């Protein structure tokens, strides 16, 4: 029996974080049984302003960021792999989705019902999801059940069943989803926007009746081994555990994953000129959804934080944004209108949206144009800039008040490769933004001519 060896003075820090009253808590006995060799585990402790992050590679080679938080007996775990729906082969759109759907639908000796029952017995959650660029799994568990919970996840990764029953249920649900989305205003707007701006890119691909019907459990099993592999696995965790306790559990969970895989290279999107006229999509309902989208900025762009601060005053700051002040508070045209910067691996946009009754769609659209024009012409006031910085920096701590939020925030930093000191340096970057920068970026990005508008509903007053 041996304790995992900790070096770089990390032991004290870890212990102080997790269990102040006992210098070196023995790992749970069952985890020691798994430790057949004496692996050395280096734990770098990053004492940040918002979280004390313990960064380590498990003996099995999985890279983990952990925040030990003993005050609630739970563990929040996030796992992510680069690669997602863009890797679905042509004609098999929905394949990655079928993989993640089935990850908690049976593994090893447990069929779907037995697997779900086991999760309930352990009072745990475990589920996976996929998007264009990433595939993710997350789990919450009670610390008292952590070893058993991680064993169940291990079996899902090593021996997923992809039984016909749940697989066909996935197909039935997907086909109904395909019917239902045809009257979903948000889906219609998103699809019209994608078809206008990047119709030939894999981001614009959709599931179809034919592609869902062509899926098989064998194809899903093969795709799962491509999406979920050891060398691309990123883990973040927050909870009442130490690195020594968590590492062997994660190694056991990841043990059955393939070492590596090839994922397709996807091209970046270069957005074309915006549509000169709004794109109208007819839908019988009392309100029109107005969406608008223009080229945005990469996270690495030197102007990214400038744009981020500016966006607060445009439509990111709730009631403090000009779009809300004018179109909601002053004119009563909408319950809400928002803008945001969005970033993905191959597309960066500045977009927004809101809903108004069909009769006022023309006035609403004109109001958005007017506001954007004013940003281009006059920028923001020094007071607006100060308010934006004060909110964005002052409220940042609110994103770190729960285990789940911290695990999620750390995963975002890892996925976008922002650096382990990102949380600590982010407010300084916001405070460094100048009025000149903001007004220059407003001119460069916020002209209404840069935005493609999509209107879903039965809008009136649109030329």
């Amino acid at each position, binding site marked *: 029996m041996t304790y995992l060896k900790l070096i770089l003075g990390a032991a004290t820090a870890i212990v102080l974080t997790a269990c102040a009253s006992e210098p070196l808590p023995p790992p749970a006995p069952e985890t020691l049984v798994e430790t057949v060799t004496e692996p050395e585990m280096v734990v770098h402790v990053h004492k940040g302003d918002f979280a004390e992050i313990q960064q380590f590679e498990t003996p099995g080679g999985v890279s983990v960021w952990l925040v030990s938080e003993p005050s609630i007996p739970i563990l929040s775990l996030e796992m992510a792999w680069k690669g997602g729906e863009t890797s679905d082969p042509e004609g098999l759109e929905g394949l990655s989705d079928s993989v993640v759907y089935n990850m908690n639908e049976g593994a090893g000796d447990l069929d779907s019902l037995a697997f779900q029952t086991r999760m309930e017995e352990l009072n745990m959650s475990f589920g996976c999801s996929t998007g264009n660029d990433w595939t993710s799994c997350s789990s919450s568990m009670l610390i008292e059940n952590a070893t058993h919970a991680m064993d169940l996840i291990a079996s899902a990764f090593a021996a997923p069943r992809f039984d016909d029953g749940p697989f066909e249920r996935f197909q039935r649900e997907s086909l109904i989803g395909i019917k239902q989305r045809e009257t979903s205003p948000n889906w219609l707007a998103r699809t019209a926007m994608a078809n206008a701006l990047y119709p030939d890119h894999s981001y614009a691909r959709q599931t179809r009746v034919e592609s869902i019907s062509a899926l098989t459990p064998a194809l899903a099993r093969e795709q799962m081994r491509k999406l979920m592999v050891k060398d691309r696995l990123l883990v973040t965790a927050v909870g009442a555990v130490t690195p020594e306790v968590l590492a062997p559990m994660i190694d056991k969970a990841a043990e059955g994953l393939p070492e590596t895989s090839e994922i397709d290279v996807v091209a970046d999107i270069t957005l074309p000129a915006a549509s000169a006229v709004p794109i109208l999509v007819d839908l019988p309902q*009392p309100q029109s959804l107005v969406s608008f989208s223009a080229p945005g900025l990469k996270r690495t762009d030197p102007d990214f934080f400038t744009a981020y601060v500016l966006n607060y005053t445009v439509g990111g700051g709730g009631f403090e944004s000009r779009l809300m002040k004018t179109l909601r508070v002053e004119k009563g045209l909408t319950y809400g209108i928002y803008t945001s910067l969005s970033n993905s691996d191959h597309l960066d946009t500045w977009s927004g949206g809101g809903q108004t009754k069909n009769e006022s769609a023309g006035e609403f659209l004109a109001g958005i144009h007017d506001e954007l024009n004013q940003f281009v012409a006059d920028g923001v006031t020094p007071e607006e800039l100060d308010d934006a910085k004060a909110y964005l920096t002052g409220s940042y701590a609110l994103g770190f008040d729960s285990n789940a939020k911290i695990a999620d925030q750390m995963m975002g930093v890892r996925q976008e490769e922002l650096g382990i000191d990102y949380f600590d340096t982010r407010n300084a970057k916001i405070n460094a933004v100048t009025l000149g920068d903001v007004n220059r970026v407003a001119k460069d990005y916020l002209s209404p001519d840069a935005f493609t508008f999509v209107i879903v509903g039965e809008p009136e007053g649109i030329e």
Partner: protein
Amino acid sequence: MKRIITGGLLALALLCPGAMADEAAWAPKTFTLDNGMEVVVVPDHRAPVVTHMVWYKVGAVDEAEGKSGLAHLFEHVMFKETENLGPEEFTTIVQRNGGQLNAFTSWDYTAYFERVAKPQLGKMMELEAERMVNLKINDDPEGPFISERDVVKEERRQRIENNPGAILQEQVLSTLWKGHPYEITVIGLMDEVAALTPEDGMAFYEKYYSPENAILVVAGDVTPDEVRMLAEATYGQIEPTGKVDGTRKWAPVPLLTENELIVHADPKVRQPSWSRYYSGLSQSRQRRESYALDVGLSVLGGGMTSRLYQALVEDEQVAIDVNTYAWTTLHDEGPAIISASPVDGVSLDELDTAVMAMVRDILAEGFTDAEVVRARNSLAAEAIYGRDSQSAMANTFGATLALGGTVDQILNYPDAIRSITTDEAIAAVRKVFGNDRHYIEAELVPAEGGI
């Protein structure tokens, strides 16, 4: 929605001997200010932030005839202007201090909240205290009250009228609660909202907004002593109006007396759905029995492992989904619901027959101890997970106290739910879905022709 606890700490104690002391510090504290305002403090020292809420014991249930939507529209107006704060300045100050803020209205209560870094807590109390006593409502017939009324009308369109399922549910609930103050949805009827006036708003304020009708909840990085000091300096300075109408229009909801069918056909519906709404229970009125009902409905149709899902979605494959659940957290009795959606080729009549036959069989056969234990442990565990969210904690304490409940009821919830027996769980479900009970059948179907 009430899921909190102090138990289940054995494992943590083994891993971290210091943890028990931390648990003791978590224990919520309550006290009352001299002016009658109740205070709850829920310490959570993980991050240097606080959630500050003021709950008023007034909601849509208290609206006068013909004034539906007033409680909610008034909640919006609370952000407008006071004697010492200019138009919209409340929000500006909170956000300039790094705060997030919002408010919500239910049939039973109205709550306002700010989430801020701990040093700003006193400032938030000053602001909330200011609008508790010094609100101004602009009576310009084209002014901010009127534009806010238009905002609420847009909110109603967005929440309800755009959404076929919400349109149907509004009709069903108003039938279920016929004659009870819950009959009209919180946001109100469009024509009644359109007729609300600044004078209606001011009368509502004067009648209900006073410290003796309010509950302060602070969750986060604070001690009860700190909160008491700040609260006495702010809220504590407000004289109670002494004229709060404390009589709520709450009343037991009578059982349905006949079966009804309500069909909503809509061109936006692409997938039909079917539900039955039965007269249910409420935690406030039938606490233990409503816990038993929650456990029983979880076994019957509470997810993939439930009896109905396994029978109808997995085995017979007549439904794409099936659920049973009850609204038990309103003060008065809400519905107990069975809902399902058919696979292609199965009509709603066939679905109804299949679902109800299965419900009858299962209720005749009864539940096993194992599935009841699993269901009640899941409900109890949600209380532990719930503690991860500071705002969820604040909401649980605020909502419970606003309905006349106690902190002990929250703390005892996991033990209470774990003590529900198999007999109690099956009895509660047999009662609400019994053959002697009536129901409203609700069908959401595509409009002829579609789009």
